[in-house]
């Protein structure tokens, strides 16, 4: 589904992502882990088109999307959530989600001025899609609430729903379980599984190892921008290079 070849992103002299090649399969949960500053978020930004890579290529469903603008990539079916969830605080939860389906609509200024049938149909479509994704993430009971008043975990779910409203085939989740408690993390993991069951491919960055090890089908480990390992959770758990990167070797400790 997603094929990354020799991906590199340099900021001045620093290579935030260095020569990373990997393939993610459809309908699987793929995870990216690594210490802080390993280049995980940069990797996501490159895939989502928020940044253009210095070298290398990104293939999505056999199509070269390297350097394509973010909004075009979104229309091709790649959605994402961010580390910090930003939503429109003053609106209701449901209201926040309606814009998510905008990219599947055509209405322009002229439709707005004459209130065309196309616009009315598309607004109906966006609204019903918003209701669907709200149900999907299990929040239909708080759709009427002002977004500023809902909990952190609920906001994360709304962010998921917003990403799903774009009708994606691949969803990039940047630290979905950041800042929420263990029980909520469990529920969120269940939601991620449910997304995959419904035909969405997931790729996530996460620091919570328990969650990753039980959830992921495939894990890629980044350190200092380079891929140091990839494989199943079992392979990653026993990989000496990974253990060293995470725990530090004796030499590092001495220095």
């Amino acid at each position: 589904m997603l094929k990354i070849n020799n991906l590199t992103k340099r900021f001045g002299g620093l290579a935030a992502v260095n020569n990373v090649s990997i393939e993610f399969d459809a309908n699987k949960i793929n995870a990216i882990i690594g210490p802080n500053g390993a280049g995980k978020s940069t990797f996501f930004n490159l895939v989502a088109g928020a940044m253009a890579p210095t070298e290398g290529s990104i293939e999505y469903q056999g199509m070269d999307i390297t350097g394509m603008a973010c909004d075009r990539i979104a229309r091709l079916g790649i959605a994402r959530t961010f580390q910090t969830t930003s939503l429109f605080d003053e609106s209701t939860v449901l209201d926040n989600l309606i814009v998510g389906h905008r990219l599947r609509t055509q209405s322009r200024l002229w439709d707005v001025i004459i209130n065309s049938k196309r616009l009315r149909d598309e607004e109906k479509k966006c609204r019903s899609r918003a209701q669907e994704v709200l149900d999907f993430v299990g929040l239909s009971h708080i759709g009427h609430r002002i977004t500023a008043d809902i909990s952190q975990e609920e906001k994360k779910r709304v962010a998921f729903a917003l990403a799903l409203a774009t009708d994606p085939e691949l969803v990039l989740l940047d630290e979905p379980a950041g800042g929420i408690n263990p029980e909520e993390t469990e529920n969120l993991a269940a939601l991620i599984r449910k997304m995959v069951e419904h035909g969405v491919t997931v790729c996530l960055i996460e620091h919570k190892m328990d969650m990753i090890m039980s959830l992921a089908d495939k894990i890629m480990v980044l350190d200092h921008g380079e891929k140091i390992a990839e494989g199943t959770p079992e392979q990653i758990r026993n990989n000496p290079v990974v253990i060293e990167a995470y725990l530090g070797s004796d030499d590092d400790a001495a220095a």
Partner: protein
Amino acid sequence: MNALHKISDFFMTPAMKIVMILAALLFPFVASNEYQIYVMALAFVWAIAVYGMNIITGLCGQLNLAHGGFFAIGAYTLAILTVDHGWAFWWAFVAAGIAGALLGFLAGVVSLRLKEHYFAIFTLCVGFIIYLLIDKWEELTHGALGIINIPAPSGFGLVDFTETTPFYYLALVFMVLSIWLAARIANSLLGRSFRAIRISDELAASLGINLMRNKVLAFVLSTTYASVAGALYAGMVRFIGPAEADVVHTFDMITFLLVGGIGTLMGPLFGTLAITWLTQSLQFLEEYRMIVFGPLLVVLVIFFPRGVVGTFLTWRGRRLAAAHETAQKESASEKKSQTKKAVTPRNQEAGNHA
């Protein structure tokens, strides 16, 4: 408390619109003198420009400090075409709107490449450049002398818009049209795209929204509003000078927006009218009225960051959400008691069998 809720509900009904329009229509009859009608008409003209600012700044989140400049572009386009080139008022009026849109497009394409503070600073410069051009380009703009004897809007022999009251109604018609269009935009998918950009560029782009196209569209809409308002202003005041492009007007409009409620539909109107009449009633304080204004604004920004209308809407939204939840609970408990009742006979039956 309940009375308060009822009043607040009434504010949101379609009937409220009719009440407001009726009040506006009757205002000239209850005003104690012509000056009050004049002030109100002028406030309506400014309100149109503030609605434009609300599109780019309130909906789309880009603080445009060149807004006063585009107001002046509208005023000067109308004045130059009518006075120096003998155009009919309404043709010049249309041209003023088009000039605002075209120049807005050019300025927008360049300045919207910048974000946040940089965009604000850049547009501040654009506004100042517009001021300088108007002040120094004497062949075109008559420089510091300004342009006098601008014709009033033509009434096609039916109405005389040099009179205050007819002009008041003209300004009212334009303002109502402006609000109507602003409402259309704000409530549509287009307005939702703008608001997504206001939340964050990254989020909007990740939702497949083309940032540049939407921002430029919002910018052009706002400059068109500003120049239409400027053209009306020129037709009302009938002499203009470089001071119309002064950045002070931009900051006045920002004040109107903040007081009324940035990003809301009725905020621009409320803010413009409230501040205009407050300024009028504090006229006796002359320059010292800023001593009243300053602290008032600070208090407002601290306690009502979303302005009067925005604060009202949030309060009402919370109340509706709470009401919705109690209704849900009540219906849930009703269902429960119903199922209990439904279950009881069976239990009894089961008990009998036992």
